């Protein structure tokens, strides 16, 4: 569809994330719109990564927006399954707080330095991370232990 402007994509490593986002913020990307993640465990073949990027199970997706020259930019960060940690963007964009809590809740990705690393959508005593691909739909028949 012609009216969707192609969003430029940047592949950054975890170590460069804070630096890159800080630089983009100086360049006029005034707001962090979205932080989400994808679990590529069951993806049949990832062809959209540049050759120098090592694919990992999780991918953190950050969307920033610039208002002066209207446009968005998307950052994709590979996060390995055996060490799912990412530095928090809270110090640059406090608005990522809830979004990062949601990613942590749904994917079990730990945001280092996050001020409130609690579950946001699932109950505090929930086990597992529902949006992971190895978490089956309807895996737990009785959802809330207190009702048993």
């Amino acid at each position, binding site marked *: 569809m012609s009216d969707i402007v192609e969003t430029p994509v940047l592949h950054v490593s975890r170590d460069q994330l804070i630096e890159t986002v800080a630089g983009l913020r100086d360049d006029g990307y005034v707001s962090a*719109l979205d932080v989400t993640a994808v679990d590529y465990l069951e993806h049949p073949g990832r062809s*959209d990564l540049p050759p120098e990027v090592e694919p990992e199970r999780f991918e953190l997706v950050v*969307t920033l927006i610039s208002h002066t020259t209207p446009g968005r930019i998307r950052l994709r960060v590979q996060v390995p399954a055996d060490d799912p940690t990412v530095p928090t963007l809270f110090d640059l964009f406090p608005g990522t707080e809830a979004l990062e809590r949601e990613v942590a809740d749904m994917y079990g990705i730990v945001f280092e330095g996050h001020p409130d690393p609690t579950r946001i*959508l699932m109950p505090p005593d929930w086990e597992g991370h529902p949006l992971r691909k190895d978490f089956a739909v309807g895996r737990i028949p009785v959802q809330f232990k207190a009702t048993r």
Partner: protein
Amino acid sequence: MSAPETTVEAATDEAVRRRENSAVLRIGEDDGERLEAESSASDTSMIMNMGPQHPSTHGVLRLMLEMEGETVMRSKPVIGYLHTGMEKTAETLTYLQGPTNVTRMDYAAPLFSELAFSMATEALLGLELPPRATWIRMLMCELNRISSHLLFQATNGMDIGAVSMMLYGWREREEALRLLETITGLRMNHNYIRPGGVAADLPDGWRDEVLTLIDALPARLKEFDTLLTGQPIYRERLQGVGVINTAECLALGVTGPILRSTGYAWDLRRDMPYLAYDEVDFDVVVGTYGDCFDRYAIRLNEIRESIRILAQILDQMPSGDYRVQDKKVTPPPRARIDESMEALIHHFKIFTEGFKVPAGEVYAAVESPRGELGCYMVSDGSAVPYRMHIRGPSFVNLQTLPHLMRGGMVADAVAIISSVDPIMGEVDR
């Protein structure tokens, strides 16, 4: 890694962060009672729960408020009571079934979620929509924006104590919903905007019905003005309450009427046009003080702008197809199914197996009545999305609550929740 600290700290952001640290109550959901029991007698603050079942919380929103007498100090919105795993469900539904799922997120403005989902799918497919489909989508979205803002007028009035406003707001909204029902078949959760166009063409007489609505509304909005806008009690409750500035809004990722209430003109329809919004004439309504009253006035005037847009759509509605004529995406016309075995098979296959979408990832966003509603979609080349994420404006906007409430009264908290206009279905998804 020392670079960010030294280079990027602007003074405004420092202020935002200080407030951030002091306004948000960062304790666990179950810690309230424990902290209460441990606090000493000299500690005058108490932690109070508001909701999740409270008439002013617009669904099931729970607030933990740290109170100093009647004054709200820090607070924390606790959400998730309406979480039904819709993003997980989306990974099991075909692209044609997807809109039935996302339409249930923001139930006051369902067509916008359908639109974002459809635009993302079409971007992956590389589909070009016929002009009539685009204009029908615009017509429906503006009607939906009107009904959503009318709902806000009703509930906002009720929360402040102007209970009669609820009746008027609901009456007007019902007119708009009746029109949506005539066109889509349903008052809410329409599943009308689908990948490839819309579900059906506009019915006979739609033009007269839209005209009737947009002719009647301005007079009704004038009644709202008489009842609320100039009313001293109402103004007293809203003016100067829940103030936020532009820097704070941008730092918190806030979009929509809350951002515009600070005097910052940012509207995706004008600044990053989608559909055919660059071909219609309208104003972006902004406020001055960023308080509850500005947010009320913006929504009221956005109804007037939507009426303006609707009048232009009526004049410019092109003829032609209401969905793409791409056999891969579009089911055959109903009449063909009775006479052609191939059409029947085609219909059956599209609705059981769906259609395959090329692998890739895309983010499509629209300006919903609450702000930027985005859909991030990853396809692995099969007939169901590999990942479907909705960036809900209510979810992000909810983070402003602690900042807006700090230092105010509990009664102000009610006015503030109302002015943020969260839809919990979209917050919890």
